[in-house]
């Protein structure tokens, strides 16, 4: 048992490490591709060679990030097959189809349009080159779409049916999987956050160059595009983030309750603006959940339902299967004890199916199969010993949400101020402290972006597939020591890649300080 827990913990740590490092590269690729495409569009439209040189400068930084980041996501797929084989089999073609489409998109785009983008400046027409650059920008986003479709299915499994014979989920409705409401929100949220991060990146690097009195004219022009894309990005990120909150309230209400450290909900639920999670708090006890709490009245009801007079369930409400109408009347929903019971019925039926299959009893197999399907909605709950096992880590979910929102709010203010400066008061960039803030905002934006993923993935625990498969049951029969070894191997490999990326970028930017970008 201890070894199993250790395998689960190390496999989760390894996946988290790989995903976090992967996500350092991805958002910059998503956003910088758009920024370069916008810059090149200005060049083509105005015929101004300055913009071509500016676009080429940022395209080189895009290329460095793209080269270092490419294929880092493949390791996640390796981990599925080795560490998470039960899960890999159980999801069936739900994961395979989107990832295959993603692979085809990535290969097609990388082999053709990226090559034209980098090699084709003097070999193809301006317009064809511009189309290629936009195709790269669109292509990397579409590539992200299919990954997020797969991820969204894990958060909200739709369009599928479990087949006890194959022991895997089969796709019954591709449209439902592809256009899963969670996927759509996740896609636009992730892509827009990439625009934001790349906007901040361009602003930060521009500020650093301006501070060094290098290529001031080119960097002021870059700031205009960087802030325009960045403002659009952060506004869209916030809009889709609001949509995500509504989706979470519908399909993952336990995650929303954990995000708020909310145990007992009410109609017109407040939103915690500031506070500390009480680490001793447990479901069902009388201890306060949040210490030093400052709340926004009705905030959570508005966030979750866009209506201040609605009920938002807390952890205890969800466990007990209780909801309230706007008038305060109680409605009974399915309690977690009932879900656990239904899950165990499904699992017992699966055992019966197994025994019947070994005995060659087709009638018993069909009968067991029917029971599995009838109770499959709560299949995963059958693995829990008590309803409390279904509660996510509240503190990490609570704090990651606040880090994301607070930094996101800061980034919005930062971007609006920098856009005003870029378009109306460029002389303010002479102030060194302002440029230093610009540079320091780059790592803060990475923290914000990663916090969003921590919230999404930690908040859905203990599920690897919502309601169907707990993370603990998804792991393979491997030893903890082998996962530990590859964990440290990845930590070394990814750190080396990150150091290489930062070193090459810094070297390139420093070399650009010494040359005139617009006249070289």
């Amino acid at each position, binding site marked *: 048992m201890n070894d*199993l827990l250790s395998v689960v913990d190390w496999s989760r740590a390894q996946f988290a490490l790989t995903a976090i490092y992967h996500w350092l590269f991805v958002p910059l690729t998503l956003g910088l591709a758009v920024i370069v495409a916008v810059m090149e569009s200005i060049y083509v439209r105005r015929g101004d060679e300055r913009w071509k040189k500016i676009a080429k400068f940022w395209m080189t930084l895009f290329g460095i990030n793209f080269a270092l980041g490419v294929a880092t996501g493949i390791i996640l797929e390796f981990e599925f097959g080795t560490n998470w*084989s039960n899960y890999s089999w159980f999801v069936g073609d739900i994961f395979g189809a989107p990832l295959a489409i993603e692979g085809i998109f990535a290969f097609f785009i990388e082999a053709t349009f990226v090559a034209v983008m980098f090699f084709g400046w003097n070999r193809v027409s301006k317009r064809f080159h511009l189309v290629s650059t936009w195709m790269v920008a669109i292509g990397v986003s579409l590539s992200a779409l299919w990954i997020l479709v797969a991820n969204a299915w894990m958060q909200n499994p739709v369009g599928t049916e479990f087949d006890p014979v194959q022991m895997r989920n089969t796709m019954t409705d591709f449209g439902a999987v592809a256009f899963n409401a969670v996927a759509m929100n996740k896609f636009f949220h992730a892509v827009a956050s990439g625009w934001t991060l790349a906007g901040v990146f361009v602003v930060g690097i521009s500020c650093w160059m301006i501070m060094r009195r290098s290529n001031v004219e080119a960097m002021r022009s870059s700031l205009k595009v960087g802030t325009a894309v960045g403002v659009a990005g952060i506004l869209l990120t916030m809009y889709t983030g609001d949509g995500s909150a509504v989706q979470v309230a519908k399909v993952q209400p336990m995650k929303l309750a954990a995000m708020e450290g909310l145990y007992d909900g009410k109609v017109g639920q407040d939103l915690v603006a500031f506070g500390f999670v009480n680490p001793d708090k447990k479901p069902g006890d009388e201890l306060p959940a949040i210490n030093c709490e400052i709340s926004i009245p009705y905030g959570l009801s508005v966030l979750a339902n866009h209506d201040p007079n609605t009920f938002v369930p807390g952890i205890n409400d969800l466990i007990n299967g209780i909801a309230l109408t706007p008038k305060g009347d109680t409605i009974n929903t399915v309690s977690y004890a009932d879900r656990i019971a239904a899950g165990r019925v499904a*699992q017992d039926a699966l*055992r019966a199916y*197994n025994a019947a299959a070994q005995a060659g009893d087709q009638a018993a197999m069909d009968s067991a199969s029917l029971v599995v399907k009838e109770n499959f909605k709560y299949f995963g709950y059958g693995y829990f010993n008590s309803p409390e096992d279904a509660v996510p880590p509240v503190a990490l979910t609570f704090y990651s949400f606040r880090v994301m929102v607070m930094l996101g709010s800061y980034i919005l203010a930062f971007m609006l101020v920098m856009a005003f400066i870029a378009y109306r008061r460029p002389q303010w960039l002479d102030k060194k402290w302002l440029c230093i803030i610009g540079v320091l905002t780059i790592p803060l934006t990475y923290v914000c972006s990663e916090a969003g993923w921590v919230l999404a993935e930690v908040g859905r625990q203990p599920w690897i597939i919502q309601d169907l498969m707990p993370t603990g049951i998804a792991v393979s029969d491997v030893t903890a020591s082998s996962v530990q070894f590859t964990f440290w191997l990845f930590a070394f490999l990814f750190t080396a890649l990150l150091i290489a990326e930062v070193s090459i970028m810094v070297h390139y930017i420093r070399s650009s300080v010494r040359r005139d970008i617009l006249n070289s």
Partner: protein
Amino acid sequence: MSRLKSIVNFYVDGFKSMTIGRTLWLIILIKLAIIFLVLKLFFFPDKLATEYDTDAQRADAVRHALTLDK
């Protein structure tokens, strides 16, 4: 044929004219070699694909794992 040649030349000339791109390609090749020739081959076998011959056996193995009382 001439179109194919021009496409090949496009890539060849592009690779030849690279500056910082040479370093990047070197990193990409080393990375891909590590990922596919070391990690995939020695550390990340597909458990079910390597341990079982048929999908029915794999389904049985997962059914057994998911119904095991842990």
